[in-house]
């Protein structure tokens, strides 16, 4: 007789912990063929608010680390993900369908994407910041700083590569985030949060919510302590418009949904829309 496997309970990731939804609710997740995979946590509005609190609490410490350090931590995430390549290939294959080879290519691309962004940690400031040659005796310079707490609606289709591609550029510059995962394909995201938890990413920097967006996205969009919202995974135009409208309550920075090729090399834009430019002036004199 073959061994009975030990299955994982898929929970949320909030503030470095893996809690179930405070609502006690779950929803059924199936594979690409409709076969039962797991009962994932169905995050509530309260879970979303708790996740924002955790992200805000983590912001000062994460933004205050040196860019070199954040780059090392992100590189560590890539290392740990590489080490769990087979597990992720299996999960991606079950979530998205397709062949093992395709799933492995997705995992490889995800690792490479993390390495790419890790390298940007201590370079982006030199590319987008600098000194300003003002017409008066002042030293004047501009530096990029993280915007703050970011709500990320992860892509619905690409459960791992898409997720990594929207989360890495947010946190590499010092922002913290609350990620609402793909609704139908949430499991790789939860397993990825285990990778983050074992890679020196401080608790609260990336918080992961699973479940229908209708339960959490309105709360994140209107939350007054969220500074920006990425609507990439919003689903319908109607929802995206409603959440962009709600985001105006505290003038969140908003990224609208757009067609994306997750395999293409990203530009700087997913980092720069979450960077505030700070300009500092000081007189020059004896």
């Amino acid at each position, binding site marked *: 007789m073959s061994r009975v496997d030990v299955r994982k309970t898929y929970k949320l990731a909030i503030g470095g912990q893996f809690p179930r939804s405070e609502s006690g609710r779950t929803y059924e997740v199936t594979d690409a063929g409709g076969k039962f995979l797991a009962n994932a946590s169905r995050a509530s509005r309260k879970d979303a608010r708790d996740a924002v609190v955790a992200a805000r609490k983590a912001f000062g410490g994460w933004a205050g680390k040196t860019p070199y350090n954040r780059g090392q931590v992100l590189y560590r995430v890539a290392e740990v993900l590489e080490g769990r390549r087979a597990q992720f290939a299996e999960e991606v294959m079950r979530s998205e369908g397709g062949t093992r080879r395709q799933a492995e290519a997705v995992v490889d691309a995800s690792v490479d994407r993390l390495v790419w962004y890790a390298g940007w940690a201590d370079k982006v400031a030199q*590319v*987008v910041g600098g000194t*300003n*040659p*003002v*017409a*008066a005796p*002042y030293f*004047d310079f*501009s530096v990029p700083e993280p*915007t703050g707490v970011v709500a990320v609606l992860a892509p619905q289709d690409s459960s791992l590569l898409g997720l990594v591609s929207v989360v890495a550029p947010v946190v590499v510059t010092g922002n913290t985030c609350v990620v609402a995962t793909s609704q139908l394909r949430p499991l790789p995201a939860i397993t990825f949060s285990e990778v983050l938890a074992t890679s020196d990413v401080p608790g609260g920097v990336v918080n992961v919510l699973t479940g229908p967006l209708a339960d959490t996205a309105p709360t994140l969009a209107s939350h007054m302590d969220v*500074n920006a919202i990425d609507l990439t995974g919003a689903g319908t*135009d109607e929802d*995206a*418009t409603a959440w*962009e*409208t709600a*985001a*105006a*309550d*505290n*003038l969140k*920075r*908003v*990224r*609208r949904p*757009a067609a994306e090729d997750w395999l293409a090399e*990203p*530009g*700087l*834009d*997913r980092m720069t*829309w979450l960077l*505030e*430019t*700070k*300009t*500092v*002036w*000081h*007189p020059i004199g004896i």
Partner: protein
Amino acid sequence: MTSTPTGTVFEYAPAPESTAIVDIRSSYGLFVDGEFVDPTGGRSFKTVNPATEEVLAEVAEAGEDDVDLAVRAARRAYTRTWGRMSGRERGKYLFRIARLLQERSRELAVLESIDNGKPIRESRDFDVPQAAAHFFYYAGWADKLRYAVPAADPRPLGVAGQVIPWNFPLLMLAWKVAPALAAGNTVVLKPAETTPLSALLFAEICQQADLPPGVVNILTGAGETGRAVVAHPDVDKVAFTGSTEVGKQIARAVAGTRKKVTLELGGKAANIVFDDAPVDQAVEGIVNGIFFNQGHVCCAGSRLLVQESVADEVLERLKRRMGTLRLGDPLDKNTDVGAINSAEQLTRIKELSDVGEQEGAGRWSPPCDLPTNGFWFPPTIFTGVSQAHRIAREEIFGPVLSVLTFRTPAEAVEKANNTPYGLSAGVWTDKGSRILWAADKLRAGVVWANTFNKFDPTSPFGGYKESGYGREGGRHGLEGYLTWEGKA
């Protein structure tokens, strides 16, 4: 010389700038497709001199049909001429405009002071030269756009709808129009209802520069006109400077559209004075921070945070300095504080100041005779202000300073950041490491250290949090008017 309770003030003979150089017409049309035209609805409104309440001119009020005509003109100009013109040629038009602004600078300065109420010293030495410098700066970018953004293929967005405030009418026009045109966009600009005249003179300058028709369209009007510009479906980009409240309305109005937006909104800047600061310089900085342009400045240093151990000394010297400020005729070359821009704004300043008193803060102004006509408010400070007071939280947009104290640097930064705004901040200390520490901790888009209210075309300006998004000035200022591969 006169002895006042706060010091000695020299009596100056009046030194008014002549108004002969400006020729204000009795009425103005809209500037659409290169020409002045009557508004389709035939409506108009009056613009007044806030220092005298004298009516200056009848100005056309643009309705939805006029907005549509202007956007169509801008679209035509974009597709047929401006969007296809080489950057080098576009740049030469902008250089022409910069030179014309310099040539007509005296006229513009006098007109600006008449229509806005700001001291001629400021319009002459700050607003107009800065406006010309902005055009000169962005003119040079027009044929170098591929070096401005991290992409080889930057493209303009199309038609930009721009709405600007009344506090720096010509300069805000320059901040909006110069980068938009340099990037290859065409514009429909709405100046503020109370200060349309310098924008209309700018329209003449566009004619003198032979700028192709439709590249710049200027629609005068009030809030409804602005709303129509923002809402027009063929506008690709919305740029707004003004209140946070209206900024939020605009963010809602563009939700679900393709329109790109930049917003430069309100502020409640902390000006932090540490115990080792050079006090005389700090006092000059405090005065410049809050009384420059009657405090009608989004980045004004409206919250003074002074370290407890030096608070008495700083306040005493500040009061003495305030006693020497000259309030009066904006056209007098010795005037420091001019007129409040409108009756409406004066009402708001008075209301919030009364609230300050009711909530228990101590109000003080130097002895100061206010002219009988016009809109005036004396330089005012409130002491004993707590963070909960409305005068510590809300933007007053007038010559009113709220004074709070702190004991430790950490407390100063915490109080400074305790606001939904994040536009600017000031730091006064002799210690370099403390400047850089504070500049790092302050959540604000511009930090002035041992100075305040400094601006330059090369220097990015804009806010964190509810002070808006996007930057104006410098290379960063072009990003809001360009798109490229991979940019959302």
